[in-house]
């Protein structure tokens, strides 16, 4: 029984993260509105960022800014959180906001031509062309 609790406490973060990912993926596949798909894409991306940040987590450690003077007499790495996933995720956030901007621009361009953002209506217009 206590094993189960340990596993539960040790993994629940990853599980909820997976659920979040699947919400995003579902919105991308099943939603009809282009902006809704875009939001789903963004949720998917942020959940992956959450996954990476969870990797970097360390129990009993503090944020990875060295205390004043700590650098001069040796740093105990177990006292500080792993900085590498944070670095990677800064880049990933930038990528996600760039993609978001370009996607919104494309959505506006689609709206200029079709006057709608619903995918089925756009497909209908394209078929009747």
């Amino acid at each position, binding site marked *: 029984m206590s094993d189960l609790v340990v596993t539960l406490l040790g993994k629940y973060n990853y599980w909820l993260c997976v659920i979040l990912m699947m919400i995003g*993926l579902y919105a*991308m596949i099943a939603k009809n509105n*282009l902006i809704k*798909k*875009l939001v789903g*894409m963004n949720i*998917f*991306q942020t959940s*992956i960022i959450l*996954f*990476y940040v969870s*990797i970097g987590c360390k129990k009993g450690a503090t944020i990875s800014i060295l205390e004043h003077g700590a650098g001069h007499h040796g740093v105990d790495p177990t006292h500080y959180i792993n900085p*590498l*996933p944070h670095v*990677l995720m800064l*880049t*990933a956030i930038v*990528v996600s906001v*760039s*993609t978001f901007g*370009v*996607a919104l*621009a*494309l*959505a506006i*361009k*689609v709206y200029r*031509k*079709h006057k709608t953002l619903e995918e089925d209506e*756009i497909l209908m217009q*394209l078929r009747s062309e």
Partner: protein
Amino acid sequence: MTNHYPALIVVLPLLFAFVVSGVAWVKKSLCFPLTIVGMGLSAGLSVCLLGRVATTGLVEYRMGGWETPWGIGYHVDYLNALVVTVVTVLAFINLIATRKNVVEETPEKAGAFYSLYLLFIVGLTGIVLTGDLFNLYVLLEVASLTSYALIGMGNGRAPMSALNYLFVGTVGGCFYLLGVGYLYIMTGSLNMVDVATLLPQMYHSSAVVMAFIFCLVGVGIKMAFFPLHMWLPNAYGFAPTAVGSLIAPLMTKVMVYVLIRLILTVFSVDFAFVILKMGDPMVWLSSLAIVAGAVFALAQKNLKRMFCYIIVSEIGYMMGGAWLGNNTGMTGAILHIFNDAIMTLCLFLCAGSIYYRVRGLELDRLKGLFSKMPVTMACLVAGALSIIGVPPTCGFFSKWYLISGGLEAGQYGFVAALLFSSLVNVVLFFRVIEISYYGDFEDHHGHGSSGEAVMEAPASMLVPLLIVSIGLIVVGLYTGGIVNHLINPLLLKQGFLG
């Protein structure tokens, strides 16, 4: 300076991209020459790098001078050097050939266009040269983001296809990132060589297997592997001419390179073929891709869309060859990356010059073009022969390796699919040639506005086109050299015994 070649191949186009986009606001006419200089330098340096790698076998470079597991390092072997040369040289040729298309289709934003062009090449060269898994993701996004913007520049259905490509492509990128995350959580490293040394102890862990599957799915989406190919024909078909002929030959091939790199360097051949036993199902899927691509191509009435479906089928060739699990098949796959890039560029450049004169690419508008544009059509025939696989064009040799690899591995379904698709290609191209040779020319400008008469494309398009089509044959004749000096040493070093 010679030590810095790997970095300079990526960095020089990057610097020129920023300069071009700034200069566009001061003096527009400088944009194109600057782009040519940047691209040309990059192409020249990558040829030099290929020469160095051919003699030394391996060129390493450390960004910022940091040792590799801590910093980002380049680890250039035969495969990287070969693919990067193809990418930069073909992009350079395409840049010259499509200048008139760009002037015509995007006159206002030429500066921004060329800047994005260079950034796209930066992305691709970076993907090919890097030895770091996360750096690969960032550059993948550079290449993808520029390609979304470039495709979306087109008119009509282009923005919608670009948006679809964006959705699908981002999911692909995210899956790859997730796979890298799985590797990172298990090994704590991001450097390809370092990960490869840490992995063997945990080959049987489900997380590593999932990491492989996620990387495979992510890269598969980006390369339009069969069940995930839906975005490709629209995105490439509706893109502006210069963009289509840039992205179509290069993007998918680079993604095939990424897959081969992941199998050979990161996960190792043992893991992919012996432990996971992924070989058979992937080869069957590839055979399906080849057949499906060929069948869809038969149904198309537009030249460019037909080429797009041919690409889907060619991806099947390369994936199948890579997954055959023997030396010959892998040689065929790597050779086909090289050859297919040249063939596809040849076909798309032909389509570009036809579009420039005829204003349409529907098959029935090609009637009588042989008499009007003899050189362009001759190049189209050369490209077609290579796609079909007629000696002495280069397409024949890679197909030969693929087929003999398939026979060696006992994958007769794959061999049958290859032969079937060659047959379909014969039908496809003979239909095109028949229409354009025997049909009577009809002036589609119509409605009194006679416009300029259809004639041969301008010399700035024809010369690069001729170079590419002569290249098809030259590369074919030098196949033996490429295989012996570049591909065999690589496979030997990676412990690929077959």
